[in-house]
């Protein structure tokens, strides 16, 4: 599995790197994602897929929005917005401040009066993308990790094994 992942990254990087690397622009990306969100009244978790847009300004200021669907504990949907800093160059590790909104199905702990917890649930935190490589046509990023906190002692963990962005 590790070999396949490594080879995929190398191939994708090689293909895309034929073009210029630091141009500002918008990339549309697809990624595999996983998430576990646990608070005093909501548990949401699963593995799934997502699609989003990645914005890069002056080669270093980055923004990102995406939507993901996750399976495992029902059908959960996450929408995320992030802003952060990327290193210049082909190898472009980045760190983002993120805000995640969680929709869809989840296990709920009711209030004493039977009220359901609020929808959407949310968490704010950070996400790091240590293995992000810019290419002429976009980027490839492997092993992204995120951690966030939210209301009702919420903790959010997320990861992505592979994310591929194509610049337009």
């Amino acid at each position, binding site marked *: 599995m590790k070999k396949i992942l490594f080879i995929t990254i190398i191939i994708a990087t090689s293909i895309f790197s034929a073009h210029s690397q630091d141009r500002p622009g918008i990339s549309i990306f697809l990624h595999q994602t996983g998430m576990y969100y646990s608070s*005093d009244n909501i548990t949401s978790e699963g593995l799934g897929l997502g699609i989003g847009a990645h914005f890069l300004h002056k080669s270093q200021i980055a923004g990102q929005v995406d939507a993901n669907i996750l399976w*495992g504990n*029902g059908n959960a949907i996450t929408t995320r917005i992030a802003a952060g800093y990327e290193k210049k160059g082909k190898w472009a590790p980045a760190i983002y401040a993120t805000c995640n909104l969680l929709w869809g199905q989840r296990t709920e*702990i009711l209030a004493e*009066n*039977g*009220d359901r917890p609020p929808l959407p649930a949310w968490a704010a935190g950070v996400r790091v993308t240590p293995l992000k490589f810019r290419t002429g046509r976009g980027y490839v990023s492997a092993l992204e990790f995120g951690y966030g906190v939210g209301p009702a002692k919420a903790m959010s963990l997320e990861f992505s094994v592979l994310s591929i962005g194509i610049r337009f």
Partner: protein
Amino acid sequence: MKMNRLLNLTIVTFLALLVACGEKEGDRSGFEEATVVAQQVNGENLMNSVAELVDIHLNDIPIDNSECPPGDLFPTDHLTRNAAVGYISEEFRKMGYIPDTAVLGEGAYITYNVFAEWPGTSDAEEVILVGSHLDAFYGGADDNTSAVAAMLEAARIARNFSFSHTIRFIAFDLEELGSIGSTRYVEGGLAGDVKTAIVMDLIGYRSFEPGSQKSVMGIRLPDVGDYLMVIGNRDSEEITRQITDMANSQSLSKALGVLAPGDGAYFLSQALMRSDHGLMWYKGIPAVFFTDGANFRNPNYHLASDLPETIDADFLTGNTKVLMAAIALLAEVQL
């Protein structure tokens, strides 16, 4: 100009979403009448039933477990049910019911589901099912004599009142081997007239120690195990919310409502459907599940130490009041 329109549209959509996601006010009609019925629960009756039934299990002959070797959590060398079938039938009879037994399957795992009905007065064809399993490992004071005692006490009280809907009290067989009795019952079409079900499995153990309640497969729960879990799914959401509200607002017992996603059958929430309500959830029958958390709380779970002295009489009494009030609410008591 276009940007302004887009911005306005975004704001309107966001506000509409917020309104759509807003909480509806809970319906508390019927709570007071239900509480009147619940106050008839007698703790002494409950503990007497627990003591008698545990004694019966301990002196019964275990089932033939040759097809199901014992495991750590499932000591089938000590699983009994035969004498409990007779005891429950006799208790129903003493109350004035005409009990019946749905005998399903064959061989070593033939199942005897004992039931009795209190007919409704106006919507008798719609049934409120009250279920608990009758088989037990060792004495099974909490698992599941506590719930059988609650069901019998509810059956006793029900005869003092009239209800719009028929109430069916049923003790399912061989839950411990994979809800065999209830599965056959539902698969056999015998639950086709069930409007709503209340299923109980372990409702008599509590602890006030921090850390006494463990998480259930990643689902974070209050860590002091001093509450009754009232668990529902999409089909039983409204009644789960109502029962939780009624239990707490009427001070019947401390109740924690839990809603499983969808029908509850998802990989990471299936621990919540681990009893006789499981197939009902699959089949779309609205069912709510009462439990004290089983092995996620009770250290005597499936052990020889599951004895009457580990049962909290006040907790069991309160939880039986929740059961009785829920029956009165769902079956529409006529005071």
